[in-house]
């Protein structure tokens, strides 16, 4: 007999670990007695059990995953398409804006300044730079050194 270890590896049977003695089993059955299997109409019992289950199983079929997918597809597909369209438009417009900004910055250093300072032309930029000087005593002195 295989040594009993208390472990029961998957796939092994009880008989492999604790083998039954056929004589013990036969005597035990004759002494204790089996359930009265002969009283059962097995075909009828089985048919009744399966018949009871048929309705439940049919409902289960209707509730299968395909039903849920079909139901949700009516909502999710249009929403998904709209989202894709919106995303596409966003990408196109964002790409154009980025492209024009990068061109201006690359070609004209003043553009970089104007981008940073928020003014739109060189003249305006110069004016905005000179504006603080005009309002100070230093600037008046500086201007006074020049002939009127």
């Amino acid at each position, binding site marked *: 007999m295989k040594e009993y270890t208390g472990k029961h590896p998957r796939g092994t049977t009880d008989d492999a670990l604790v083998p039954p003695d056929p004589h013990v089993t036969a005597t035990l059955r004759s*002494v204790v007695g089996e359930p009265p299997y*002969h009283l059962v109409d097995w075909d009828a019992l*089985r048919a009744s059990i399966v018949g009871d289950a048929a309705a439940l199983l049919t409902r289960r079929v209707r509730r299968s995953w395909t039903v849920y997918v079909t139901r949700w597809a009516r909502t999710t597909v249009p929403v998904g398409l709209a989202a894709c369209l919106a995303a596409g438009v966003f990408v196109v417009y964002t790409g154009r804006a980025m492209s024009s900004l990068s061109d201006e910055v690359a070609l004209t250093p003043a553009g970089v300044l104007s981008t940073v300072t928020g003014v739109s032309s060189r003249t305006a930029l110069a004016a905005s730079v000179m504006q603080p000087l005009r309002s100070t005593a230093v600037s008046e002195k500086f201007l006074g050194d020049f002939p009127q």
Partner: protein
Amino acid sequence: MPAAADFVQSAVVTLDQAAESAVVGRVLAGDVEAYDMLVRAYLRKAYAVAYRVLGHSQDAEDAVQESFFTALERLNTFDRQRPFGPWFLRIVANHARNLRRSNAVREGAPLDESSAFDPSRTPDHVTEDSELRAAFREALAQLAPRPRQIVQLADVDGLASTEIAELLDLSPGTVRAYLHEARQALRRILVAFHGDGS
């Protein structure tokens, strides 16, 4: 009267765990034929368990029928990595116990877990007083309740140790240890009568 033994032998389906898991999956998808396979695989065991608890054939059939339906309703909670038998037979035993607790059981021989294994309650046709059987009954009666229950569920009703473990709230290892103990004790009786146990 149906030819029960013939039907049982021809209609019983034996499923290994992989096949059983696949069958359960098909049942979950609504396959009636797969459900029929599960029923055929466990009908006899379910009846045996229910009968041991209820002691009445018709009540046992009712409990079996309800148990199969309950199992189907709860099948989506069943872990398919585990064997179906222990899970299902526990449902059967619970249904049978509930039926026994209710007043719906018929007059008969209601059995509880201890009396179900009482040798004095065995059918008349199997209680002939041969010396061997008398000694065997005595040995059986002297076993502790657990080993006695377990050896009967295993060797008379054909349940696996994992199924018995689930029914009795024991570990499978404990069940096998009790089973070994009981078989050894009963075998000693046979050895005493026949010398080598044969």
